[in-house]
């Protein structure tokens, strides 16, 4: 099923929970709605499901406006953050409930439930009540219940947030695999950028109800459209430094009190129209800085070995930046070091608007 959100808005009184959101989702695509808590993700999902009427705009399924359709007629499956299993029913009854409402025969119901149960590896607990199974199992049951009627659209609201860290990593992969196997259009709501990056084909980043950027994970990572997306995606987050963009003898430089960095042609091409000097924010990811030699001087603040690599925090003047160094890196606090930024990986944002100057 294709989903199209057309200038969708949902206000609660003065609160603009969803603000003029336009988003097209292809059939079979896995899209994540990503944003901090309170940015309107759940509201968007509940509006798509039909629990909220849009204040303005349209929800389209397969090019048909469904604004007025009640949830039960939308052919969707949904997994809630709290799983919302029916406490008074056995696991099997929970899973087959949607089919019982459709008056599907008992035999067919149970065949389908058994097939899904084995796919999700919950065959052994079908007779139990939801209160008697673990959180991870409850979640699989909720998934099975959402999938059994073979919906055209699967909605997942923070499905992993109630699981422990280890189980979360397992379920992440399993849900992704299941989605690919079934080819079901899926919208995942999450505040966890790792979850969104690892699972989704495309990510839509929301903040205070507004769409910030939408694109495949690599695109959001490599070319964030603004400061918010740049800072939200990636761990440890991108480093930001205030600087001035200057042009001397036809070449662009970014200058701060501490250093002056010439920009490579690949970057210059994109900013040649910008009047100089211009106040900018320079963004550089921790893995795009190398310690050893270079023009930029820093002072080691703390070194945190992580096993696979080492996270180094250091001062450049009064600002602290984070650098990912090789696992063998050793230094003691207070030590002076020299740094190089990989110039091609530098991001530039307008200081006024926060918008990227490179896209």
């Amino acid at each position, binding site marked *: 099923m294709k989903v199209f959100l057309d200038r969708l808005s949902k206000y609660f009184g003065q609160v603009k929970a969803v603000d003029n959101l336009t988003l097209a989702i292809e059939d079979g695509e896995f899209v994540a709605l990503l944003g901090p808590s309170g940015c309107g993700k*759940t509201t968007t999902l*509940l509006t798509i*499901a039909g*629990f909220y009427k849009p204040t303005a705009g349209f929800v389209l399924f397969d090019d048909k406006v469904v604004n007025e359709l*009640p*949830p*039960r007629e*939308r052919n*969707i*499956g*949904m997994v*809630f*953050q*709290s*799983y*919302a*299993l*029916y*406490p*008074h029913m056995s696991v099997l009854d929970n899973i087959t*409930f*949607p089919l019982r*409402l*459709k008056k599907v025969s008992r035999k067919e119901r149970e065949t389908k439930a058994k097939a899904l149960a084995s796919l999700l590896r919950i065959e052994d607990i079908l007779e139990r009540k939801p209160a008697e199974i673990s959180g991870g199992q409850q979640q699989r049951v909720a998934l099975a*219940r*959402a999938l059994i*009627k073979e919906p055209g659209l699967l909605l997942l*609201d*923070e499905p992993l947030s*109630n699981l422990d860290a280890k189980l979360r990593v397992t379920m992440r992969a399993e849900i992704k695999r299941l989605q690919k196997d079934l080819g079901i259009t899926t919208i995942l709501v999450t505040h966890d950028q790792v979850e969104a990056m690892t699972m989704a084909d495309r990510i839509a980043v929301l903040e205070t109800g507004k769409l910030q950027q939408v694109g495949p994970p690599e695109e959001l990572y490599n070319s964030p459209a603004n400061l918010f997306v740049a800072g939200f995606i990636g761990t440890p987050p991108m480093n930001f430094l205030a600087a001035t963009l200057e042009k001397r003898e036809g070449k662009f430089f970014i200058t701060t009190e501490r250093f002056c960095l010439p920009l490579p042609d690949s970057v210059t091409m994109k900013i040649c129209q910008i009047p100089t000097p211009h106040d900018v924010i320079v963004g550089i990811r921790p893995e795009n800085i190398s310690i050893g030699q270079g023009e930029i001087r820093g002072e080691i603040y703390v070194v945190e070995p992580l096993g696979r690599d080492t996270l180094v925090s250091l001062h450049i003047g009064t600002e602290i930046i984070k650098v990912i160094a090789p696992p063998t890196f050793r230094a003691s606090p207070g030590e002076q070091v020299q740094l190089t930024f990989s110039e091609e990986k530098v991001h530039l944002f307008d200081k006024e608007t926060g918008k990227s100057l490179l896209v």
Partner: protein
Amino acid sequence: MAYKRGTKAIPYLILGFVAAPFLIMYVGFFLRAFGEKMVLGIIPAQWGIYNFRFLWQPITWGLEQTTMWTAFGNTMFFATLSGFIVTVICMLAGYALSRVEFRGRSFFLILQLVLHAVPGQILLIAVFFLLLYIGLLHRIPGVALARAALEIPLGVWMAKGFFDGIPWDVERAAMVDGCTRLQVWYKIFLPLVKPGIAAVFIWGFLFAWHDFIYVYTLLPGTIKVMATLIQSLLATEVIDYGYLAALSLIYSIPPLSLFIFLQRALLKVPIFGGKGT
């Protein structure tokens, strides 16, 4: 230590002192019911069930006569019907008030509380004429309807409270799964608030069972319920207290057993865990 024990005893002493009159009354009540040939008016000389002879004999007073079983049956019918009406209406209204957004919802909720504060007696005359016009006066179902109406305001609040405890996500899940609102109500909500249903029913039942003024005013003298039967026996010239005590004992058995049931049911009202959004 001694000092501590002394202070601890004080509340018990006060409570015992306050409870004593009631305790003595209840003991006297049992002595009366099962005692025969009372000495000095309160000490039974002999135990027996002679006072319970209404169980197999008709009850007479003045020129009238009935049996305990007729009155007991009438009371049971009256109270059950009243409890049933209260339950159905409160469960539907409680769900709507808990989950459906509509204009005047909070006004309606406050109105229920105000209505509950109105004593039933002052409505008697209006109820009398209402029942007369709809042809239900002097009939148990009619009076049960009127009696139920008095308990509905608070019952609605009770029912709303039970439904409020069910997470929104459970309701949304049911609607995504294909339920209509009514299906959500009876397939998901009612099973989840079963103890609440029992509580509301018992609530309606008990108040009807205990009612005197409505049945006395709105039923003819020929249709006796337990309350009006006991009143009739009290209004005769010679009062047989043992007989009355025995009759009252039978009258109080159903509410007593229901009270025990009510406690259990209320303790079982489901409590949901899990995070909501």
